């Protein structure tokens, strides 16, 4: 591989915008989440209507912002292997911001509170609380964001295909299936390929439903099948949020070898795992529809089996690989590497309650209880966001000259300050505790998306609020540090 060229000015600026914007939005939306939990705990009074607006804003912004931050990780590392066309980063950002403004406007001006999953036909049933116009703004906002990401992943596809020729080569199929002795494609390429495939298909599904809902808003005689929309909506939602983790994990593959001075070899198991994940991440979405008895039952069964299987590549390849590379490596932990390692733990541990809930018999009593936000907050807070924070801190911690040119050479670590150390551990414990309280609430059958809870349930929310404040506090420290140091971020 040729030595790294510095990021061009425009690309660096764009990446830093992605980092800065997503760090700040994460923080703000965590505060919104805390307000929701505190209101469920009856510590503060939030009228139900406003609660559901906050819920829509929190869910929607968190999902798309995760997408934004994760795409920065993908781009940042992918450019080491391919030639990416910088203006795409700006187009995506422009569409993203326009979309977010529309969405927030629809929620806080138009009163839209249809939840980020916009389940048909709820958007057209605002019953006077939100108008067709507000629903339109929300849908158009999501569409614009979708268009931006579509262009982004098309560019990723173009760049990878140009370098590697075809999807099979980029996924390493010749090495995997034909015993080809060509050098293995790097992990970043494999992950990038998987992500562009599933995300382009996911966005296609999203674009189909969103426009149909939009048409139906104005011309109700164009009828839409609610069950089919549900399928497409969850396909899109599931794929998109999972793909964020598959992008963020690139930072782990790229950086842990640098921190430990060991190599993370791409081998057949790795390739097989990623190919399998590409297929399974698209096949498991019906686990959101297990309580829709009108669905063919083979779909529920296959969703259960694929959901079980989907966890294996993660545990066997990524988690085990990370543990192996770190074990007795003499690593000197710094804030970035520590967060990345915690994130792998959060991801692996968080999928466990997810997989268990993908069992039909369990889903019967856990579906749409707080068990569900429980498992996804676990792997999004302790997993995804920790991973993204690790990447962000890596970006701000390097100074230009000393940044390693050779990706396999050990990195120079920045010692952690007391503030770093405490913020990271408070964040970790806070997020584990917060998600555990959701899981425990789910065990007690507390339904999700309820603005007001029964008195019996309030204690869970109260404890959760305490954990939530820890998260927000720690996040505040980390985000301030990141934003302040952004201008001095690495140039490579």
């Amino acid at each position, binding site marked *: 591989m040729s030595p790294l060229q510095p990021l061009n000015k425009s690309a660096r600026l764009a990446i830093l915008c992605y980092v800065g914007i997503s760090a700040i939005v994460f923080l703000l939306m965590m505060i919104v989440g805390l307000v929701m939990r505190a209101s469920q705990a009856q510590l503060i009074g939030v009228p139900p209507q406003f609660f559901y607006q906050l819920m829509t804003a929190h869910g929607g912004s968190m999902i798309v912002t995760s997408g934004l931050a994760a795409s920065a990780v993908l781009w940042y590392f992918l450019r080491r292997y391919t030639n990416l066309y910088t203006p795409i980063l700006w187009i995506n950002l422009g569409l993203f911001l326009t979309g977010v403004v529309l969405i927030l406007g629809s929620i806080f001006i138009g009163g839209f509170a249809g939840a980020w999953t916009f389940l048909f036909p709820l958007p057209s049933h605002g019953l006077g609380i939100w108008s067709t116009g507000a629903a339109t703004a929300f849908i158009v906002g999501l569409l614009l964001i979708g268009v931006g990401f579509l*262009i982004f992943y098309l560019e990723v596809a173009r760049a990878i295909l140009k370098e590697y020729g*075809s999807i099979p080569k980029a996924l390493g199929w010749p090495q995997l299936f034909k015993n080809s002795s060509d050098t293995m494609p790097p992990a970043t390429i494999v992950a990038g390929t998987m992500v562009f495939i599933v995300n382009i298909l996911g966005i296609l599904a999203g674009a189909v439903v969103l426009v149909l809902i939009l048409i139906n808003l104005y011309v109700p005689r164009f*009828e*839409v099948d609610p069950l089919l929309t549900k399928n497409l909506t969850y396909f899109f939602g599931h794929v998109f949020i999972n793909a964020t983790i598959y992008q963020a994990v690139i930072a782990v593959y790229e950086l842990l070898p640098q921190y430990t001075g060991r190599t993370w070899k791409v081998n057949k198991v790795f390739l097989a795992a990623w190919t399998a994940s590409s297929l399974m991440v698209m096949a498991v979405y019906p686990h959101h529809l297990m309580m829709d008895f009108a669905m063919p039952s083979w779909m529920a069964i296959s969703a259960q089996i694929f959901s079980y299987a989907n966890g294996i590549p993660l545990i066997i390849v990524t988690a085990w690989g990370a543990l192996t590379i770190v074990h007795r490596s003499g690593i000197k932990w710094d804030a970035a590497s520590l967060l990345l390692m915690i994130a792998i733990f959060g991801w692996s541990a968080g999928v466990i309650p997810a997989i268990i809930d993908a069992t039909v018999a369990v889903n019967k009593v856990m579906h749409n209880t707080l068990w569900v936000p429980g498992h996804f907050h676990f792997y999004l807070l302790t997993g995804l966001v920790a991973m993204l924070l690790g990447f962000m801190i890596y970006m701000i911690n390097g100074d230009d000259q000393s940044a390693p040119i050779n990706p396999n050479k050990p990195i120079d670590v920045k010692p952690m300050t007391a503030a770093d150390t405490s913020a990271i551990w408070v964040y970790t414990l806070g997020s584990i505790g917060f998600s555990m309280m959701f899981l425990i609430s789910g065990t007690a059958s507390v339904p999700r998306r309820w603005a007001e809870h029964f008195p019996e349930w309030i204690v869970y929310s109260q404890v959760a609020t305490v954990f939530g404040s820890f998260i927000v506090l720690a996040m505040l420290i980390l985000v301030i540090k990141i934003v302040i140091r952004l201008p001095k971020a690495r140039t490579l």
Partner: protein
Amino acid sequence: MIERIFWIFCALAYSLFAINTNFEASMINNVLIAYTLLIYCGWKLGSSFDIEQHWLNKLSNYKGIAGVLIASFTLAFWMIPNWMELAASNTQIQLIKHFSMFTLVGLPLGLSWSQSNFVIRGFVKIELLSMLLRLGWIYLISPTRLCNIYSLSEQALLGKALLSLAVALTLYYLYPLFVDQNDRAKKLTPGL
């Protein structure tokens, strides 16, 4: 020159034919044959011009983006049953429809396609697929007639046809991505 006249002639001939017969009384003929034919003629006409270096093109049609957008919006417009219905009952509107398929969909695509790149083409393809899926779906499941002049069974048939077309096109678009570009004399995926 001859070639250009030929394509204009084809479009005109078709239009005259359709106005004087009942050909477009069938939804399938209307959408699958009429649209495709007119767009194809316009495309051929457009691609016979080499405008890439023309200042006007450089100014207004960067990488063919404007042309591609005009074409998508026009096409989407004529897929809406209300307008199809109107065109079926009124010869003037029918003529406008033919004219815009030729000059606002086919022609701009022909002028722009060769200038566009992988990302823009990919975008158009995804947009086309999603349009086919949406319409096919609406036509297929609607329990009432969306156009009064067409029968319900024909509407469902068109729905199935559009969905099948979407599936076929998906495979057609995906195939080259699975075949190594370097192993082939002809580049299957231009614009990389």
